């Protein structure tokens, strides 16, 4: 009796689990249909799909890491500059050996993740502040190494820039993270931490260790995203990965993810979100909006969605 009472009271349409689960898919279809008509079908022309895909890999991979951080109630604003720094390492090392380059990129990402984790977990500073600090710090580092000239990767790195490699690389990462998230209990643990840290601790979860691990993992994943980016671009300038963090966050929220993380998070939020974001932004480009106008529109959409999807019960506490 009482359970019903609290459940139905104050539960708006958007808060119902089924609505939350279906809404992103509905939105995906809507966005597709909308831009199909607005662009006269050009958006789904074969070569545009190809172009869309080629722009999607990096965002998709990087979003996966941030997804983990956000599930446990954290935020990561350092992704963009992190990607820049990792790319520098990768491009530099690719001149020696391509495998070494990948390892170097992943290690760099992991190390940055460790720093994020250290300040968040051990020094108990909110992830929001820590990662914003690192966003500036790493962007500075990026600029320092690329002032004189961009860092160039080995010239034949572009041989990896083909559909088969990119697609396989991305899918392998997505599937791996999905399997770990879903079938090792990590997902359940992360969601629990996002929903309530104290109670998770009392349920026997090693909260600090888990958080640390997730920050490092997210960094490593960004290292992989940096590799895909380097393959595509072939060099790094000081603006590499600029605003990636916002793109990731908009994509995840578009995919129906609650900005507070917690138990209502689903892995498909990443896939749906990234595709919606890409179609949306590419559609806006094709319709001839200026980049300023695009930013404005994306900002409005983001704000509206956060308003709809935020989980007010968990409270807007960013950890």
């Amino acid at each position: 009796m009482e359970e019903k009472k609290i459940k139905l009271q104050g539960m708006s349409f958007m808060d119902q689990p089924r609505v939350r689960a279906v809404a992103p898919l509905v939105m995906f279809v809507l966005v597709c249909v909308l831009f199909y008509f607005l662009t006269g079908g050009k958006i789904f022309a074969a070569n545009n799909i190809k172009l869309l895909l080629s722009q999607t890999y990096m965002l998709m991979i990087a979003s996966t890491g941030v997804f983990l951080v956000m599930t446990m109630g954290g935020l990561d604003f350092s992704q963009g500059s992190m990607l820049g720094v990792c790319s520098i390492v990768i491009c530099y090392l690719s001149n020696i050996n391509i495998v070494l380059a990948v390892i170097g990129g992943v290690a760099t990402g992991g190390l940055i993740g460790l720093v994020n984790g250290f300040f968040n977990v051990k020094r108990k500073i909110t992830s929001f502040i820590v990662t914003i600090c690192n966003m500036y710090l790493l962007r500075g580092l990026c600029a320092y190494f690329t002032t004189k000239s961009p860092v160039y990767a080995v010239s034949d790195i572009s041989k990896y820039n083909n559909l088969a490699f990119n697609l396989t690389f991305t899918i392998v990462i997505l599937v791996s993270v999905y399997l770990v998230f879903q079938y090792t209990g990590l997902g359940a643990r992360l969601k629990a931490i996002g929903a309530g840290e104290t109670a998770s601790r009392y349920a026997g979860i090693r909260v600090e260790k888990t958080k640390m691990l997730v920050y490092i993992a997210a960094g490593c994943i960004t290292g992989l995203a940096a590799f895909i980016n380097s393959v595509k671009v072939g060099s790094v300038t000081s603006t590499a990965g600029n605003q990636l963090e916002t793109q990731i966050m908009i994509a995840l929220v578009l995919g129906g993810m609650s900005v507070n993380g917690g138990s209502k998070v689903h892995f498909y939020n990443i896939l749906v979100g990234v595709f919606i974001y890409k179609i949306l932004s590419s559609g806006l480009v094709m319709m001839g909006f200026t980049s300023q106008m695009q930013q404005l529109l994306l900002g409005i959409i983001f704000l509206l969605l956060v308003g709809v999807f935020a989980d007010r019960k968990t409270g807007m506490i960013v950890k």
Partner: protein
Amino acid sequence: MAELLLHAEDIDKKFGITHAVNHVSLDFYKGEIHALIGENGSGKSTFTSMLTGIYTKEHGRFFLEGEEIHPQNQVDANRKGVAIIVQEVGTLSGLTVAENIFLGKEDDFISHGIKHTNAMNRKAQELLNSYGFNHIDATAVIDTYNFEERKLIEIVKSTHFNPKVLVVDETTTALGHEGRRELFKVMKKMKELGNCVIFISHDLEEVLEQSDSISVLRDGVLIDTVPSEGTTVDDLRKLMVGREMSGNFYRTDYGEPISEEVVLRAEHLKVPGELRDFSLELHKGEILGIGGLSECGMHEVGKALFGASYDREGSVTLANGTIIKDIPTAIKNSIAYASKDRDNESLVINDTIRDNICLPSLENLKRNRILHNRDMNAFAEKFAKEMSTKMEGVDQFTSALSGGNKQKVVLARWIGLDSDIIILDSPTRGIDIKVKADIYARMDEMRKSGKSIIMISEEIMELLGMSDRILIMKDGALQGEFLRSEELTDEDLIEQMV
């Protein structure tokens, strides 16, 4: 007959398909303490929430001294002469005591657009003193006071303007003996001034002792209003449940010997500000009760044994020599803990029943190192059902459950893990008698199957009724020990507590 003060006419409220309050009409008189009782979910709180403007009513009217009132919120209700003291924390942290007392009424201290903080503090201190709470400083930030003292401050907040109707909603479950005495004193005073107190409590003895008349609700329907005089606890139980309940739902056995085998040994536990020096031995198959006043440190004992205390000194050792120093080690070695703070520590409140039950068992649920959703669902389903949890499904969020059902989920979690040492802190706090009886029966079963239970409780009757041994604590240390016996009375225990 006394003069009519508040008349509720055909009050009705539905939440979806649930008829929470079903056309209830009730009269409250001047100078009476009128108790509202019923099981969890019987509509007591919903009824008073409508009266105090927390919920809006669907149908019906309230008349206060003949005039219809429909408060929009709590402050509005206060202005109309209706106040409420709630079960959980009703004060805001970060504000001073004075700011809390006058929350929503700051305008009274504003002249020409300037708030006179000094005047407000002075007035608050005067009020505190008039209640005899001189030890509380009106200018201090409320966080410097503990739960119990904050409750006293809340009493001042809700009664200082002399409301005509005061609702006391299950406040006593949160209070120790001292706090209850203060609350009852205030209730008496309200009554003597010709006001009416609506008193909601699960403690039927307390209800009979304090109130003049008692109204019983069941499934949102008003069953009966009876005078307290000449009514017994059993009469009330019958009215509440609608069927005969045996007078005693505690264990009935006496004189069973306690096993010699020690399963857990704690030595010289010290936690700054909580425990001075505390040691205990837990035997196999016993229920060890720990009692005392709420600030005696007993709640910290549970945390310390579970490895959850910060800055703990001393050792906790199992029979096989394993040392417990953190929560994961405790859980791995078959120790379970259900905290008094159900919503923050026992349960991940914004997570599903399934996840809450499965969390400590995730590793055991894996087949070939792989965790399947299907297995988690089945596991949660099995143990939630075993505890007869009232739910829509294991996907339901625990935040939507009533207190009793939340506790069932907590127990289901540890029963699912088959823990051998179970530490229960205030296991029946704020829980109705039907679920209480379930929990006691379950504890007795566990004891018989050789599991050892530590029950930390502020309820003396529960300690006497369920424990094989009782430790009484005072000021962070052991004060006395009692063995289970029919001759043991509540006075014996209280004597050691104070």
